[in-house]
């Protein structure tokens, strides 16, 4: 591709000319300017609390680097993949970035993120970070991101409706169905449970709870666990909620977690799957709900809480950044135990340090207690950069569940098709 390559310098010249022109109006200190600015990308819309917190982090960071200004840019979650691609293609990116922990491996494979294995190993506080989260930010044994905060999903429920129907928070699958039916009977026009039929993460709790697996690596090849009786049992239970028990509507086949959460917030459903960090959004939809809500861990079939997916955010260094050491210094301030605890509690997430999430810290919080319980037993989706294609592009699991809910396939057909598709993606050369 020589012709295209030869054009690259031309583009570079044009781009740099543009930058020189743009820079003319600026301060003009070129060489020393190198460390005068550190660009940090944060996900989301940037609440006031988050901005105040990051100002505090910058103040702390400036004690060591008084001449560096930290510029924080907020990027909406859904925009992030496009923004990352553009930054990577154009060569102008941040120095430090936050990213969802399901995406770290994918971006590491795209060579967007810097390898921080050595830096991470030499950082004492890092040794206390929950090991599942640390592994989730690795690719081929190298560390490409550092966990920042953690979150798990649980079930929110209406305490007032449950009391009216005379049911208690369920602890196994049968009780879950019974409670949903009882409340729905008592409250006509509502759904027993807002099932996000088009989301995968809440479903995995049922899969793992039943003893199923998403996929297992055997040597060089991945084998999907969806054809196992346990996985089929989980798919059957999940889809039966709509098709047999009718405690969620057929439209739920297309609902994502936000759609489902909104049903709960607006008083149309008695239960909904959501993360602890979504409490704020639910309250925003319906401030009154705070008086009548509670949470409980997603139950397993047998009475024990089901394992939950260890979600959350990582912080990574951008591979193209010329200020790796400076960026790492910022990262260690941002992720220090003290700052992490401060930040996580203001957002409704959990800190990533095992010594901070254990203990009785959250036992008396009516919302956070269930999440703290779930956080004791977390699992991960398959650790391969190809997983993102299964999960995001081909949406294999979501399509499997939706097709059963819509009545297009039987559980056996759907699980067999999904397993075959998953294996063909994960084992592609």
């Amino acid at each position, binding site marked *: *591709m020589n012709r*295209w*390559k030869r*054009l*690259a310098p031309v*583009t570079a010249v044009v781009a740099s000319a543009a930058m020189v022109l743009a820079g003319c109006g600026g301060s003009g200190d070129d060489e020393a300017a190198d460390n005068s600015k550190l660009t940090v990308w944060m996900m989301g819309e940037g609440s006031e609390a988050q901005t105040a917190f990051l100002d505090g982090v910058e103040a702390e960071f400036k004690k060591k680097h008084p001449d560096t200004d930290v510029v924080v840019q907020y990027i909406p979650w859904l925009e992030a*993949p*496009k923004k990352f*691609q553009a930054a*990577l*293609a*154009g*060569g102008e990116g941040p120095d430090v970035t936050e990213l969802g922990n399901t*995406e770290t491996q*994918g971006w590491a*494979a*795209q*060579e*967007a993120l810097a390898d921080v294995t050595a830096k991470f190993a030499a950082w004492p506080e890092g040794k206390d970070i929950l090991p599942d989260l640390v592994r989730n930010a690795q690719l081929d044994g190298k560390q490409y991101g550092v966990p920042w905060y953690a979150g798990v999903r649980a079930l929110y429920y209406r305490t007032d409706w449950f009391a009216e129907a005379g049911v208690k928070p369920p602890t196994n699958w049968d009780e879950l169905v019974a409670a949903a039916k009882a409340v729905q009977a008592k409250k006509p*026009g509502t*759904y027993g449970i807002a099932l996000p039929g*088009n989301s995968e993460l809440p479903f995995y709790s049922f899969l793992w709870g039943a003893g199923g697996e998403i996929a297992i690596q055997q040597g060089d090849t991945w084998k999907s666990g969806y054809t196992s009786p346990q996985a089929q049992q989980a798919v059957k239970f999940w889809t039966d909620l709509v098709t047999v028990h009718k405690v969620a*509507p*057929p*439209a*739920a*086949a*297309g609902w*994502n977690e936000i759609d489902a959460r909104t*049903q709960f917030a607006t008083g*149309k459903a008695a239960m909904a799957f959501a993360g602890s960090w979504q409490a704020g959004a639910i309250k925003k939809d319906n401030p009154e709900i705070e008086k009548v809500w509670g949470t409980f861990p997603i139950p397993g079939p047998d009475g024990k809480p089901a394992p939950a997916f260890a979600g959350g955010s990582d912080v990574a260094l951008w591979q193209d950044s010329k200020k790796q050491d400076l960026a790492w210094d910022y990262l260690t301030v941002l992720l220090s135990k003290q700052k992490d605890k401060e930040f996580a509690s203001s957002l409704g997430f959990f800190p990533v340090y095992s010594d901070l999430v254990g203990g009785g810290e959250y036992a008396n919080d009516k919302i956070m207690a269930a999440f703290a319980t779930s956080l004791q037993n977390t699992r991960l989706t398959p650790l391969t*950069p*190809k997983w*993102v*294609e299964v999960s*995001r*592009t*081909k*949406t294999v699991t*979501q*399509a499997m569940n939706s097709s059963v809910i*819509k009545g*297009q396939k039987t559980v056996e057909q759907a699980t067999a098709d999904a397993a075959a598709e998953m294996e063909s993606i994960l084992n592609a050369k």
Partner: protein
Amino acid sequence: MTTLTQAPETPAARETPARRRRRVDRLPYLLLLPCLAIIGVLLLWPLGQVVAMSFFRLDNVRQLRGDRDWPWVGLGNYAEILGDPFFRTVLRNTVLFAAANVALTMILGTLVGLLLNRLGKRMATFVASCVMLAWATPALTGTIVWKWLFDDTSGLVTWLFNALPDGLSNALFGRADWTGYGWFNSPLMFFSILTLVVVWHSFPFIAVSVLAGLKSVPSELHEAARVDGAGPWKVFWKITFPLLRPVFGILVVLSTIWDFKVFTQQFVLAGGTQDRPTFMLSIYSYAEAFSPPPKYGLGAAIAVILTLILLVVTGLYVRMVLKQEEDA
């Protein structure tokens, strides 16, 4: 139109030295240059890029930057797509959807155009403004509103179906309670709603164009036909349609192009790139190219296939129209 037809006559009509005439001849091309340059940079160059990219294996953003090699795969991307059974689903969706939409848009647009031509001045202005509003609504906003209409709990359509008498609703559809009904659950329902949205968006242009054509048909022809005892159906097919054949030809070609590459409406109604059974070529290309992990080469190849199909379809159609004109 008049200036265009007069332009070539002016230099010939005037007595000018040969030298000057040549300079005048060059002027139109000089005036076209800026336009050509813009089209070249914004259209032809990216088009060339897409075609070039479709011959390489591109799955890393850094390749676009020139940091990494571009491994040549020849027709490998095309072989992969054409060999994938999923491509047949996508192609079938695209062709059926485009055929249905072109037909419906043309029929509805022509009928509204004929209606506008018959209406009095005030009523015509009123109807035309209403129709133009649909056209003026940006595809994105319009589709979001349509999606709300079909919302499963608080949408107007759900409400209307709930308002039907239970007995009637049960007899017709086998259900009385429509709250929570998944309007977008089956591909057929999804495509029906998508067709509604796309036709709603595109028929006003057809209507206005047909109206413009009708205004140029001398009314004596219609009167004469009617005096001879021809009904409206016959008048349309014997008088209006043959006279407006070039207009219809262009409108069909344009509609075909638009309906083959519908993207915005589908992306919004389906809520992104998750609903694969309803994929059509343009969203398929987008999803392959830009959903992580990116596959720019595959996405480019799909885009080229879409372009080729469009060229063939419109080429055949244009030939057919031209041939009919020769025969006529």
